[in-house]
């Protein structure tokens, strides 16, 4: 066991930051420390490195109490990357060479070997050719890779990385994690604090969840990242999904309290699907009719689970369905006539729309009606009367805004 943290307690001023932290880590392990801000993740790293002295418990490095070591000795064994991002005009190579500090003599004169190690470290993070650039002129991702090269040049057996992916774009985040992951495969152990649970589950083989100065859950990602542990540790509502062998976390959609309002959508042929999904997302009850079974709008309704009046595939609307539709229209809070195409089979849907109260009837008039009318003059007349009494909108977005306004107020 290369590193062992045993019953460690740390106090800063009067507050106890770490209450009782115990864990072990071995070579080839990449462990993520997950937890909310202020939970003690960074403190754990600082205590392992010996910056903070525990008031209780011991940190063992290679079986020896860390307090026995000088900073110089610790720096040879542990590569610690603090969270604070340095700002300096030093050249990249000078920054990486600083990683050789614990190996230099009294006069701090780096040898050819030191320079070679530094250059190799730069190469290993894909920053070859950057050695004479000013550090301050690099992008955020490049800076972090240089810092990783600095701790690689330190040639330590344990890496402690405090939020190495913070403020980085997604490709740099992945790059940094891959670099550490690769390093771990050659005889190194790494502890990484982070906020991105998905990044942690993708790259780390073990996760420690920290809350209020204690490790509350520890184990493999698939075992401990669950809806309930995340609720407990972060007080966040998420869904945990599986994708192949990996798991990932997505926020649960916040459902507003719109459940007592129902919107009826007269649609078909895909003209209503967008409205169905979006209204459902905002939290309204949605009903639709009359739809043919297997129509894409019908699929949307089946998926979201609202009341649907349906007919067999490719059959015209029956009298019975028409009546049911009228009933639903009558009882709904708003009725939307989608941008549907009208044929002889579904002309009854227009008639139903016309029966709706003018005040609660919204029409999406996106495509000119004559381009989607296949039922002749009768349909055209019906549509004109509908337009005359309803509120008309150019697209689905406008209708959704109007729904919000009408039903909120």
């Amino acid at each position: 066991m290369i590193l062992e943290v045993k019953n460690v307690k740390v106090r800063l001023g009067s507050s106890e930051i770490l209450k009782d932290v115990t864990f072990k880590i071995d070579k080839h392990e990449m462990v993520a420390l997950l937890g909310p801000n202020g939970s003690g993740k960074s403190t754990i790293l600082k205590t392992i490195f010996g910056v903070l002295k525990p008031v209780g418990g011991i940190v063992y490095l290679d079986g020896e109490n860390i307090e026995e070591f000088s900073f110089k000795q610790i720096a040879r064994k542990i590569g610690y990357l603090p969270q604070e991002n340095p700002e300096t005009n030093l050249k990249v190579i000078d920054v990486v060479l600083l990683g050789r500090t614990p190996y230099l003599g009294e006069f701090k004169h780096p040898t050819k070997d030191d320079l070679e190690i530094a250059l190799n470290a730069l190469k290993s993070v894909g920053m070859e050719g950057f050695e004479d650039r000013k550090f301050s002129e690099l992008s955020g991702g490049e800076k972090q890779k240089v810092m990783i090269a600095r701790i690689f040049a330190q040639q330590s057996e344990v890496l402690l990385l405090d939020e190495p992916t913070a403020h980085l774009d997604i490709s740099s985040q992945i790059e940094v994690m891959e670099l550490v992951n690769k390093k771990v495969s050659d005889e190194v152990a790494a502890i990484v604090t982070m906020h991105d649970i998905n990044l942690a589950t993708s790259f780390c083989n073990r996760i420690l969840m920290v809350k209020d100065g204690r490790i509350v859950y520890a184990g493999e990602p698939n075992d401990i990242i669950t809806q309930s542990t995340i609720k407990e540790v972060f007080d966040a509502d998420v869904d945990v999904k599986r994708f192949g062998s990996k798991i990932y976390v997505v926020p649960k959609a916040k459902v507003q309290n719109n459940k007592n309002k129902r919107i009826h959508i007269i649609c078909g042929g895909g003209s209503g699907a967008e409205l169905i999904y979006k209204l459902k997302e905002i939290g309204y009850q949605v009903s639709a009719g009359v739809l043919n079974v297997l129509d894409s709008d019908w699929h949307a309704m089946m998926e979201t689970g609202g009341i649907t009046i349906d007919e067999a595939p490719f059959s015209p609307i029956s009298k019975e369905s028409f009546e049911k539709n009228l009933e639903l229209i009558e009882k709904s809070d708003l009725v939307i006539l989608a941008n549907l195409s009208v044929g002889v089979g579904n002309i009854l849907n227009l008639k139903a729309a016309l029966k709706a109260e003018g005040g609660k009837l919204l029409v999406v008039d996106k495509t000119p009606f004559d381009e989607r009318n296949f039922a002749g003059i009768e349909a055209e007349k019906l549509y004109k009367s509908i337009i005359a009494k309803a509120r008309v909108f150019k697209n689905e977005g406008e209708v959704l805004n109007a729904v919000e306004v009408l039903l909120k107020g």
Partner: protein
Amino acid sequence: MYKLIPPLILLNALIFILCLSLGPSSVGFYDVIEVINGKADTNTESIILAYRMPRIIISMLVGSALATAGCAMQALFRNPLADPYVLGVSSGASVGAAIVILIGIATTLNTMLAAFVFSLLTAFIVYKLGETKIGLPVYTLLLAGVAMASFLSGVTSLLIYLAGKEMHQIVFWIMGGFWTAQWEKVWFVFVPIVGSIVYVLLNSWNLNAILMGEEHALSVGIDVESFKKKIIAASSLLTSSSVAVSGIIGFVGIVIPHAMRLIVGENHRTLIPTTILFGAAFMPLVDLIARTATESEIPVGIITALLGAPFFIYLLRRAKV
């Protein structure tokens, strides 16, 4: 960038000879040769050996000391505006000098000793004020220095106000200059200045590390708290020694490190040696202007401020683009 060091050493030698050869009296380069050959008369010899020589050596020591202390402070505080006087050392020295002048025991050496003791004492008090349970946060130290400096400036002003006749003497001392240079002063400050400069020089690698931030310096195995203390001690010794022999000479400690940074870059392993050498070359040259430009002597602090401030503004404008 080490390439710059031999030309700078040569420059120092040339300036040394130039300053030895020029002055308000008619003693010139030819007389210097005569002195070396032992053929000069006693008057010429005393102008060169007892007057100009210690003056040039002191100005070289003070120039390099202030520039080095400024450079170290800028790295330690990670603040380009830090200078050797941030810890209130110069205000402390003024109080010491003013007291000695006021009570009427102001020989050259007494003033020097009082300024030296008071400035070191000030640095120590500021250090103690800035110290906290968790170490020595540089911001607390900076604020303690600013507070102490303004308090002691008030004390100095009060002493000047009370001084009456001696007022000129105090004000003249504060303005800074090398006209009181003598070999005793050289011997007094030689060891503390050269010793501290060598210490800073040997620690330029650690200054690079501390430039990255204290946690980063710690993470490469440097005992940051102990290193900060030592650098503060060395800088205080450099500044106190300089102020004790030459009064308060401004801008050298800020401008020279910055000018060198523009030329050689931020790496302290080249920045510190070039700063030391450039400071040593710059100061006697400015002092040469001070003692030859007009009939009577201009305090050198006035010239460094008049030259230094516009140059500094130029650097700031340049850095903005």
